[in-house]
């Protein structure tokens, strides 16, 4: 239990560090030196030191938004089995709870964006509402698959201990597709290239970033931290899926998990470096690909595992 809590705290602490890896990779591909690996901590500290500016047209929703989205991210992290260890909290059906908790976070981000009454933010909010719908469909499809394989509905049974190595053994090919689908979800949910460009400066082309334009100071810091944690959350899935081995040694397992996690972040960084952002009308097709993959994996599994 103590161990789980330590991992939970560690995850929150390290999430900004891992996000900086992506920046570093992008800088490397651009032939630049890039910011230091601790840049995100500096940014967060800087932001927390500042004061907030609120538009007179906003209400309490606007102030609540960042807080709720961070809280939902942190709570979701409680259920996450990190490096194969049991999560802090777990119950049967927690997967669905997690999905809706993330939905809650998103809802408040959107609500806060709408609250500013800025047309750009409304546009971003519409996109933010649209693309994750497909992602959710994908995740439910993956859920069906995992339920079919394990017969349970909790993250702990999917990703801790000897899982998902066991699952790979039963249904290797489908899990490969699931990994790919998850990576696409990771890119979509966390507003990465090719769905969204976190570094863009043009409101018209933004999705996620446009919604946080009006937040400042500590509020912005909370949002940033929330997004770091969210990215960490999804990366853990993919890392665990591509590196499911259980060596029996806790330290060794953790080290290996860390390496896998780093690999996922590097992969995300490389994707961002080599790909261009899709035109807005091409994005749904990209996200649909993840759904198609998950759906396909599920059908195949139903075929194999009678």
């Amino acid at each position, binding site marked *: 239990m103590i161990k789980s809590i330590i991992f939970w705290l560690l995850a929150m602490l390290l999430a900004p560090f891992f996000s900086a890896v992506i920046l570093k990779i992008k800088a490397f591909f651009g032939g630049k030196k890039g910011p230091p690996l601790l840049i995100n901590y500096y940014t967060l500290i800087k932001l927390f030191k500042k004061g907030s500016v609120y538009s007179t047209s906003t209400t309490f929703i606007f102030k609540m938004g960042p807080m709720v989205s961070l809280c939902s991210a942190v709570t979701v992290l409680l259920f996450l089995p990190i490096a194969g260890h049991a999560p802090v909290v777990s119950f049967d059906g927690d997967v669905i709870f997690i999905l809706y908790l993330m939905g809650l976070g998103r809802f408040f981000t959107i609500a806060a964006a709408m609250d500013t009454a800025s047309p750009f933010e409304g546009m971003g909010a519409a996109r933010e509402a649209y693309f994750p719908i497909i992602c959710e469909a994908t995740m439910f499809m993956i859920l069906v698959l995992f339920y079919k394989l394990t017969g349970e509905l909790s993250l702990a049974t999917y990703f801790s201990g000897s899982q998902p190595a066991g699952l790979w053994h039963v249904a290797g*090919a489908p899990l490969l597709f699931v990994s790919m689908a998850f990576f696409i979800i990771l890119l979509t949910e966390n507003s990465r290239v090719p769905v969204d460009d976190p570094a863009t400066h043009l409101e018209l082309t933004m999705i996620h970033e446009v919604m946080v334009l009006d937040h400042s100071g500590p509020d912005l810091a909370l949002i940033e931290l929330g997004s770091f944690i969210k990215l960490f959350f999804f990366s853990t899935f993919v890392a665990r899926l591509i590196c499911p081995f259980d060596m029996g040694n806790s330290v060794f397992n953790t080290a290996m998990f860390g390496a896998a996690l780093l690999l996922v972040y590097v992969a995300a960084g490389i994707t961002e470096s080599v790909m261009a952002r899709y035109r807005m009308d091409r994005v749904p*097709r990209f996200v649909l690909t993840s759904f198609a993959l998950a759906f396909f994996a599920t059908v195949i599994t139903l075929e194999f595992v009678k």
Partner: protein
Amino acid sequence: MIHPVDILLTLVLLSVLFAFASSRLPVLIRILAFQGVVVSIVPFFLGHDMATGSIVFTLATLTIRGIIIPWSIYSMIKKMGIKREMETVVGYNVSVFVSLLLIVAAPMLSHKFNLTFFSGSTLITPTAITLVVAGMFLLMARRNAIAMVLGYIMMENGIYLVGTSFSARTQHIVEFGILLDVLAGVMIMAIMLQSMSHKYDNLDTALLRELKE
């Protein structure tokens, strides 16, 4: 225990998905080359006792389906500088949903038939059905003439997959004849495509509307 063929066939099914989502001809051609390779090496895994004749025939299939046909179409595109994006009748997102439905429907259909001839592999029949129907769909849903030819090839691949059970019982000379016919057919289509691109400088089949009734 998953039959080794099934792993390959899973990838073939996936490639159908990508073929439906792809709007670019070279991607489609690569997918077909892959399907051609997989489909022709399936007999190796099915445990028919392979005589020399069978091996030679399988290799010939591999060369023709996997290399010669896709390569010739690809080089034709390159030579003629054809636009690589395809015109569609049915859009890509809808196509993807159709392919998903297809992949669900095909196993259900093959359960009905209850085929037991294929030693061990559960996916051969569903894949064959999927390929045949998917080929038909491409023929109807894409207006680009090359895409139609590719749809035809996909259909042929599916039929060949059904035929693998049958390869045990006929002489290879017959199968070879079939293979040559398909090859010649594709070549003639390729020649037609070339003259078409000379005449219309576009392969949109909407241009072929002069003859009616």
